[in-house]
């Protein structure tokens, strides 16, 4: 019977069918096992400076570009950025070596308003979504903007291009 079925033009390859079933089960199992991480398993090694502690003159002195990270605590893409992209050592090494990383946290939802400094920066760089990475020179001119949680490679290339033009 099996041999007869195999000579039929409408034969369904058994191996493929079994693979499909096994993989569906595996997919569900792996999804259930991994779930959503409560916190990143590793912490990014980027040395972020809080906005209130940041001095633009310092960036000018060091000849570095400023890397602003606009985020919000309630934003899942921001969490993904931290846990999947910024922990990439190439990204973090480049961010630390060629930029002054500054973290800008939006508090509009939690506190009803942001600090004046935060609001000004968001307005200056037309930030409409989180996460947004903005590269600016010491004078505050925009050198690059990356909206959303892109891949590690896209983020690295974004930083590398800006760093290269600054050298």
């Amino acid at each position, binding site marked *: 019977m099996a041999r007869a079925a195999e000579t039929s033009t409408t034969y*369904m390859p058994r191996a493929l069918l079994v*693979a499909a079933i096994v*993989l569906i089960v595996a997919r569900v199992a792996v999804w259930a096992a991994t779930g959503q991480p409560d916190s990143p398993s590793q912490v990014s090694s980027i040395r972020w400076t809080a906005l209130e502690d940041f001095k633009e003159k310092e960036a000018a002195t060091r000849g570095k570009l400023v890397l602003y990270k606009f985020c*919000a605590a309630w934003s899942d893409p921001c969490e993904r950025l931290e846990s999947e992209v910024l922990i990439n050592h190439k990204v973090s090494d480049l961010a630390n070596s060629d930029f002054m990383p500054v973290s800008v946290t939006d508090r509009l939802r939690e506190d009803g308003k942001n600090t004046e400094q935060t609001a000004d920066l968001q307005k200056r760089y037309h930030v409409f979504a989180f996460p947004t990475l903005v590269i600016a020179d010491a004078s505050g001119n925009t050198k690059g903007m990356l*909206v959303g949680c892109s891949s590690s490679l896209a983020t690295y290339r974004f930083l590398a*291009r800006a760093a290269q033009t600054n050298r």
Partner: protein
Amino acid sequence: MNNGILKFTLLSACLDKIKLSYIILLGFVVPIGMKLVTYMHGAEESQTFEMLTGKVGVAFILTGLCLGLAGGGSGSQTGKGSEYLPLILTRPITRAEYIITKWATFTLVGGVLAAVQNLIVALIGVAFGEVLSPYVVAGLMLERFLDAAIISAALTLALVAQHWLFQVFAIGAFYVWMMAQTMPPVSVAGPSGVGVDAVALEGTHLMLTLSRLVGELILPTISVYDAANAPNFPYLAIVSYVSTIVIYLVAAIAVINRREFFYGTSG
């Protein structure tokens, strides 16, 4: 795998003038032109460029190849009005063999074209001083093949499953996936609370989240660089990817096995 289907699907991609023009234009001229202009004028790479050299670009190339999927090459006739696929299926080949060979050929053609495009674009970047390691470029090229494999599987299923409901779903799902590709995961800034603005914001947020979820469900692609550099082995990404391809292929074979071809006078 059937060598005849493989050979003539490849030939169709090379010898059909319309397909060739479409692939050259959208697959090479536009993205390479954009890359050159970007570097020559010091502009930033646009989102359109990112799409055309990424997964969306692969999808465009494959859609052009697959549409009119018959023959040695491209069309899949319904069996009504003209009889190409029925003629093929009266040959001593299993329908599974037909589907798998078509899928493999589309993957090969789409993957090679997109990988070559990525290579050219990378070389242009390097020529203009961009620092890209061979490891990164190889990863990009491999990623294009992986994209081609899953998109080909989805397109193959969409082309043989002729029921209008499924076609509507497939087209809708494709556009949702493309929407998810146009923008990476993002949260819209703004206050929460009541009011039209808040509703609009939440609606946008929901739309973006849904499009990403649907995209990950129907076309879970793999970012090779991210996967290779992830701190934990990306089990879920890989299992999702492989399982989706296999499910699409099994579904396509099941659909075409059940499909009947009538070409006489109806009613």
